Structures are given as structure tokens and as C-alpha cells.
């Protein structure tokens, strides 16, 4: 498809270990993230997929402490980025990382921009704060950023308000804001979900081009496996606040190991099979998050579930011998081996 920069040796730009985030709400605790670990190497694009409520956004926002605290609390974890743990930074230090070193793009461009300030003002804010530019310099840079994301007559549009832009153009503005200070890492939280299909394709094309040009590392959240296939190097599948499967994109599509991934792939419309049958979503309720999972959270909806799944929560482990110089580890958290049609043998 496109260039794959699966790097198994490059320096790690981000390493997240055992991240847990709990919301204390009036109706009790919501365990949104229950021990997520992953890493990202320079120049890679990691896709995160999972159904609504699986904890994708909360995971990413927890990295930069962007979850509202309270009600949220990050109860455990380490987020190593540029040789320091983001979770133990002071508020002032983490603000330098936000927007300065890590850019964020959110789902809904209609509501993500402040309606009462001009696009130029919102774009110049991080430039002035992180890069210490003067007003005139920031304005010039802002115009060049709008040009970079493909907005026509950028200098004139700086004085327009968000409502004067279409949805796709607003998402381009959001991307420009996220890119403003040349971040090392860009996190995009379902950036195309709210857009219609043709605009989606344009934004995807734009991001591909920008990656080629700027060589950034990216995390791309989506619930659309089709989108991930087109742009990601590796994919992590989330369910119930956990990563339940992780693999290189080709491996994941060729041989999904987790029943949930299996089911997700089956919901994708494909050309070579009877469409009508395949276009159904996975039946059953999403897991309740009122406690940390002690059994497999997917078991109640799983067609392969057996007695052990209701007793123990499987840890995520490699199925192909782990990372190697020429190999991406294919990890899964499941007691059942779909290919063998038998329980996974382990200790």
C-alpha cells in the first residue's frame, strides 16, 4: 500500500508501561484504562482500534494528563518520552510537552476550535508560547502552516472565525495547530470520524503526505480497521481498557489471533464475500468497567469462550517469539488459540 516504516530497531520515542486510569463518578468508579503498555519508535505510525468506550481516548489523554482530574485519576503507569516520565512532570513542565513536543488532533473539528476566536489567534497561541515568536513572526508561521495543510489563500483566512470554515477545512486547521511547533509525536484521536467519506480520504491523504515530508511519529486512534490498514505500521486493538492484540498491520489482517479482532474484521465489508452477512456488528454488551477485570472482559460475547475465560484474565503475550530485528511481535491476550481450535498451551 504505502511505505511501511516498521522499525524494530530505531530509538523508542514513547514507552508506556502499565497505564491505569480510573474515573471516580457519583455512580461509582469507572475503570477506563486497566494496565496498557505499548511503545512507539521514531517515524512509526501506530494504529489503535477498538469499539466505542474501549478506552482509546482516555489512554491517549492520560499520557499528557489531559483527562479531567478529578474525576479521573491515573493510578499507575509510566510514560517515558524523551528520557523522562511524563506522569511525574510538574504541571508547568508537562505544558511545555503539550503542543510543544506532542501534538493532539481531536475527533470533532466542529467543536474542537473555540468559536469566538479567529483561527489565526488559536494557531498563533502555541507558536508564541512554545517557540517564543513575536506576533508578526507567529502570524507568518501560522499562514505557512495553513498553507502546509492545504488551505487556500492562508494569509487571508487567519482572520476568519471557525464557523466560516467547512468541517474538512476545520480539521485541517486542527492539524495545523497540532503541527505548529514541530512536535516529535502527533496523536490523532479519530480525526476523520466526524467527516464525510470524500473529506476523510482527503485528510488521510494529507496526513500521509505530511508524514512523508516531516517524518513524524504518530498514534492514530480509530474504530475503523479499514482506515488503519491504509496508514498504520502496527496496530493495537483495545477492549475494555486493555490492549488485547497487537501486531504488524499485515499480520493482524492475515491472521487475527484474538476473537474480538476476528469479529471486528468480519464486520468489515469486503468484496470477496457475501456482504449482507458480514455487515453485522458484534453482538452483546460492552463490558462493565466498574472494577478492574479479573476475568477476560470479552468472554461474555466470545464465541470461543470456555471455562477458564470466566476464571482468569489472560495476560498479553507474544505468539511468534517476540520482537526481533526483522520481526514485529504479535501479541494477544486470549486463552484460546483460534488456529488450532484448542486452548493455548502455556504455563
Amino acid at each position: 500500500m504505502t511505505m511501511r516504516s516498521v522499525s524494530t530497531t530505531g530509538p523508542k520515542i514513547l514507552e508506556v508501561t502499565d497505564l491505569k486510569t480510573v474515573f471516580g463518578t457519583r455512580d461509582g468508579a469507572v475503570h477506563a484504562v486497566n494496565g496498557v503498555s505499548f511503545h512507539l519508535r521514531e517515524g512509526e505510525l501506530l494504529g489503535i482500534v477498538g469499539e466505542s468506550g474501549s478506552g482509546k481516548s482516555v489512554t491517549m489523554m492520560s499520557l499528557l494528563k489531559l483527562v479531567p482530574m478529578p474525576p479521573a485519576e491515573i493510578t499507575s503507569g509510566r510514560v517515558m518520552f524523551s528520557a523522562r516520565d511524563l506522569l511525574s512532570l510538574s504541571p508547568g513542565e508537562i505544558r511545555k510537552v503539550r503542543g510543544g513536543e506532542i501534538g493532539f488532533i481531536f475527533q470533532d473539528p466542529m467543536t474542537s476550535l473555540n468559536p469566538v476566536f479567529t483561527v489565526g489567534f488559536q494557531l498563533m497561541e502555541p507558536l508564541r508560547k512554545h517557540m517564543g515568536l513575536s506576533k508578526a513572526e507567529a502570524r507568518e508561521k501560522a499562514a505557512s502552516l495553513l498553507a502546509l495543510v492545504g488551505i487556500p489563500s492562508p494569509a487571508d483566512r487567519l482572520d476568519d472565525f471557525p464557523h466560516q470554515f467547512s468541517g474538512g477545512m476545520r480539521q485541517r486547521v486542527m492539524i495545523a495547530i497540532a503541527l505548529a511547533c514541530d512536535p516529535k509525536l502527533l496523536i490523532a484521536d479519530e480525526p476523520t470520524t466526524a467527516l464525510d467519506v470524500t473529506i476523510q480520504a482527503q485528510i488521510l491523504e494529507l496526513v500521509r503526505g505530511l508524514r512523508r515530508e516531516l517524518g513524524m511519529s504518530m498514534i492514530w486512534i480509530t474504530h475503523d480497521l479499514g482506515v488503519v490498514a491504509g496508514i498504520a505500521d502496527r496496530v493495537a486493538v483495545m477492549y475494555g481498557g486493555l490492549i488485547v492484540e497487537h501486531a504488524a498491520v499485515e499480520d493482524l489482517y492475515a491472521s487475527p489471533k484474538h476473537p474480538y479482532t476476528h469479529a471486528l474484521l468480519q464486520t468489515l465489508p469486503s468484496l470477496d464475500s457475501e456482504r449482507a452477512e458480514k455487515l453485522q456488528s458484534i453482538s452483546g454488551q460492552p463490558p462493565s468497567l466498574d472494577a478492574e477485570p479479573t476475568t477476560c472482559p470479552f468472554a461474555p460475547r466470545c464465541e470461543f469462550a470456555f471455562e477458564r475465560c470466566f476464571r482468569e484474565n489472560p495476560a498479553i503475550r507474544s505468539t511468534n517469539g517476540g520482537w526481533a530485528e526483522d520481526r514485529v511481535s504479535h501479541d494477544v491476550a486470549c486463552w484460546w488459540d483460534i488456529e488450532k481450535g484448542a486452548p493455548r498451551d502455556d504455563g
Partner: protein
Amino acid sequence: MFRYAIRRLLFAIPTLLVISFIIFALLDLAPSDPTAQLPLTIPEEVREMIKLSLGLGEPFHIRYLRWLEQFLVNEPLNLIEQFWGIEIGNSEDRLRVRSWSTRAPVVDLIAARLPQTLSVVGVSYIVAILIAVPIGVISAYKQYSIFDQVGTFISMIGFSVPTFFTGTVMIVIFSVVLGWLPSIYDTTLEVRDYDSFVAQFKQMIMPVMVLGLFNAAQLSRFMRSSMLDNLNQEYVRTARSKGMGEPVVILIHVLRNSMIPVVTVIALGLPTTFAGAIITEQIFRINGVGQLLIGAIEGADIPTVQTVTFIFAVLIVVFNLIADLLYGMLDPRIRYD
């Protein structure tokens, strides 16, 4: 925007004419006799003559049109003459709306009372805004904190207890028991030096506080809920994700949006506060427009009541327009015409 303002102003004219007619008609229909207060020894014929001299012999529509002419044409001309010191036409012959009880032009009576009312209402409204905005902002930002809960409790009391009660309690405490503040507002006091300034300040404290806290209670609730609405918006997360500090996020991004409905409420509330000040003026014996109105009602001084009521109506219409225009100025998404 400008064309919209003009259009709205033109719309206001028929509205106000209808209002003026209703006010005039209602008060005219009310059974009141301007001679009722006179000694019983005055014979009936004299009473009739007095009524005729007040213009009561004319039919209703003539009296209405005459009042309209006096109030809408003659009085503005007088004001213009006074202001620029010029003479337009024959100003001596121009008829004015006169009080039945004092025979003085009503507009002059109002002009004499206006400074007292304006200073108390105006200062109390500014005090209310200065108190309400920060309290609303902090309560919303620290939702459910001790500060927020105490604030909620106090403002609940603030707008459920009427001003005549808080006013009286304050008088009892600060004037009667402690003796710190005067209980009667001296309208004749002129601020000339430091001592008279202190005296003026002291006598304004209680009425301003009573009225100001009452308004602050409502406004702070408004400010709080508007802030809360906006704090949950996604643009707030965007601002934080850009690395903006909390003061910038709250006081620029969120506050600017939250002020849009609050400014409207402030503008709409001002005429209501004027009307509400009638009670406060009674409690503290402030010789203001409110007292004038109350006195006129008691004395069946219909022209004064009509005129003061109509001025309140004008204020409400004008501030409605101002609120609309402010909304358009604060929210770039609103475009008129």
C-alpha cells in the same frame, strides 16, 4: 449590524406607542379623584372646576394625545434647549406634563430624583457584577468544592430572601445596635470635602449592599452555570492540549465564551433592578424615583405615575435592544441582516 440596530429601533416605536396607550388607559380607567385629598369643606362646584383645570373635562383620546405630545415632543425639546442653551420655537407656551399634586412638571421632578436612584442602583449593579463574576468563575472551576457549596448556599439565601427583609435586618444591626451607619439616606448631602464624602459613602453602603448582593446572588448563579457549560466543551481540551496554562484557558478561552449569555442577562436585568429599587428606596428613605412613584400612587397623581411607568417601559425596550446588539458583538457566529 448598524442596519439591524436601526431596524430594531424603528420596531421599538410602535411597541412603545402601544405600551404608552395601555399604561395611559389603565391608569385613566382606575377610579381615582384628584380632589379626594382636599378638605371636605370645599364645595362640589369648586371641585368640578379644579378637575376641569386639570384637563379632565376633555374626552379620553384628546387627553391621551395631549400627554403623548407633551411627553414625546415638548419634553425632549425642553431637554435639548436646556442642554445646548438654545431656544426652539416658543418655549414659554409649550405645555408640559404636570403633576396634579405639586403642579410641577413631572420631568423636572424625575430629574431631581434621578441622581439618587442612579447612584444607588448604578453603584449596586456594578458591585453586583464585580462580586458575581469572580464568584461564578471560581465556583464553576472548583465545582463541588467547599467554596462552591458555600457560594451556592449563600446565593440561595441571597435571592430567596427579599430585599425589604435584608434591608431591615441590616438597619437593625448596623444602625440601631451598632450605630455605625445612618438608617436614613440624606438626599441633600453634597460631597464637597473629605468628611462629606465619608458621610455619603457611609449612607450608601447599606442600600448598595442590599441591592448589590441580591443581584450578585442571581448573577453569580448565571455566571457559574455558563462557565460550567463551557468548561465541558471540547475547545477547552484543545486549548490545554496546546499547552496553554490554566489562567489562559479559564480567563481567556472559557470566560470569553461564558460572558456571552451573562452580558445579555446583565443588560436585561438593569431596568428590572431600577424597578426593584423602589423597595430599597422605601426602606432606606432614599428620595429617589421609586419614592416619587410610590408617593404619586398614594396621592392619585396620575400624570406622574403614567410618566414614571412609561419611562420604565422605555428602559426595558432600550435595554432589550442593547442586549441583542451586545450578543451580536460578542458572538461572531451571530450575523445580523
